[in-house]
């Protein structure tokens, strides 16, 4: 155990030694060192959040065939700092009639729900906040606080548009939590544990997206809806409902919602990487040192974030009723059937060699996806023909 292999423990022991040398109680020193570690991680996350604003603006610009911010600093890197300063010096209005406590608490809870997810995310085999044995369940619980903060914002703003926007957003987020939860069960079945570190260690032979591609895809779709990003961004739909639950927020409170959403997107990129793409694993490179594992994980999180951004800037927004119909009538049944098929094949193929297991799981996913798409296509064709027939009927009787 030296600085190269286990930097966090070495630093923690050294600091604890200093604190107890000053005469502090051993337990208190331990808690203080933990507190400093938490502070370090959250500060790094907030700085990363600022650079995510820059990445977002540059990437959307490139997708739209323009350059994006390039005036402030080299390649526009100082731009997000200017944005933060602008948001801080804006006036902090509170609409009259708004419920002051709930109104002020909503952006704080929204940001907090994203930050505490990083407590269970393993950045390296030995660097993680908390080794919870219910890590996957903790993700859902933290996400639920975010959903709560949106309805708080919508309800307390004393504004009809905020209220309706908040309702719609929460109806959508809550609906898409079901496929997300079900798809979280699939890496749990493969790894036999809810602990995030165990799920990463179980991906030693093969990454989980190779044996459950449909699971990874459904998780991605549900996560994008959970984030409230396009094509599911009806609350942010600038042309509908003005700004949704965000209407009455100005200055840094709006900044907390906006930056929180970007950090949430990056967090889900990281979670997708952990659950299906091996987390910090990369063909044994992570055993060399945590200093290599952290960049591997960050690269995977950024690639996941890139895919989420790619979907956002390519696809059109869909309506709330189309979205909810898609969830309750297609994604939820499909995700439960996938879970049943995965569990059944996991039990039937328990004794077979790994490559038989892998290939049959992959094939079962592909077959299920094909069947689901065929059913959707047939239903769509039937509905289209019904509409065509009723149109012809109306025209013939004019």
């Amino acid at each position, binding site marked *: 155990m030296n600085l190269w292999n286990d930097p966090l423990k070495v630093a923690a022991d050294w600091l604890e030694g200093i604190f107890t040398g000053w005469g502090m109680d051993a337990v208190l020193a331990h808690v203080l060192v933990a507190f400093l570690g938490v502070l370090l991680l959250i500060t790094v996350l907030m700085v990363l959040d600022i650079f995510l604003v820059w990445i977002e603006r540059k990437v959307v610009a490139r997708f739209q065939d323009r350059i994006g911010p390039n005036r402030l600093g080299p390649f526009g890197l100082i731009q997000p700092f200017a944005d933060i300063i602008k948001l801080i010096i804006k006036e902090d209005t509170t609409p009259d009639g708004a419920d002051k406590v709930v109104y002020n608490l909503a952006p704080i809870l929204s940001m907090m729900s994203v930050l505490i997810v990083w407590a269970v995310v393993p950045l390296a085999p030995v660097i993680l906040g908390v*080794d919870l044995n219910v890590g996957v369940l903790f993700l859902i619980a933290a996400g639920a606080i975010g959903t709560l903060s949106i309805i708080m914002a919508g309800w307390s703003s004393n504004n009809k548009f905020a209220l309706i926007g908040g309702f719609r957003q929460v109806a959508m987020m809550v609906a898409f939590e079901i496929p997300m939860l079900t798809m979280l069960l699939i890496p749990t079945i493969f790894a036999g544990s809810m602990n995030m570190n165990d799920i990463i260690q179980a991906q030693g032979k093969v990454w989980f997206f190779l044996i459950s591609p449909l699971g990874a895809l459904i998780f991605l779709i549900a996560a994008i809806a959970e984030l409230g990003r396009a094509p599911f961004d009806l609350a942010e739909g600038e042309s509908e409902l003005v700004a949704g639950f965000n209407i009455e927020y100005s200055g840094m409170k709006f900044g907390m919602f906006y930056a929180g959403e970007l950090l949430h997107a990056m967090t889900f990129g990281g979670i997708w990487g952990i659950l299906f793409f091996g987390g910090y694993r990369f063909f044994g490179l992570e055993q060399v040192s945590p200093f290599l594992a952290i960049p591997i994980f960050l690269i995977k999180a950024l690639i996941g974030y890139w895919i989420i951004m790619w979907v956002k800037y390519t696809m059109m927004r869909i309506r709330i009723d189309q979205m909810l119909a898609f969830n309750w009538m297609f994604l939820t049944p499909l995700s439960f059937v996938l879970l049943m098929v995965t569990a059944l094949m996991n039990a039937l193929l328990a004794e077979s060699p790994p490559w038989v297991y892998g290939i049959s799981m992959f094939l079962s996913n592909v077959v299920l996806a094909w069947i689901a798409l065929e059913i959707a296509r047939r239903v769509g064709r039937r509905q289209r023909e019904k509409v065509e027939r009723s149109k012809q009927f109306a025209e013939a009787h004019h």
Partner: protein
Amino acid sequence: MNEWLYVALFMLVGLVIPVGAIGAGFIFGPKKPNPVKQSTYECGIEPVGDVWVQFKAQYYIFALVFLVFDVETVFLFPWAVRLGHLGLYAVVEGIIFITILIVGLIYTWRKGMLEWT
């Protein structure tokens, strides 16, 4: 050390940092309230009618359906964790459990409760 203590520390710091950021906004921002600025936004006109409007009953139905499936998924978590050790019997049991709830979803669907209008 109890690991949930670290989670509590995370929640505490996670609460303090946004409070600090918003507090910085509160300190550095101008404070000049006037009645027109504070009035709520309604596309440029005076707000008409009561704010807390009647909402669609459909939201309530979706929340109920979500509740049922959320509780079901919470029950499925321990099942999924121990699936590797329990053999085919537990798998079939889990499949029956999920099927009963899928039948509930199909019932809701056929009754038209999942339509938006």
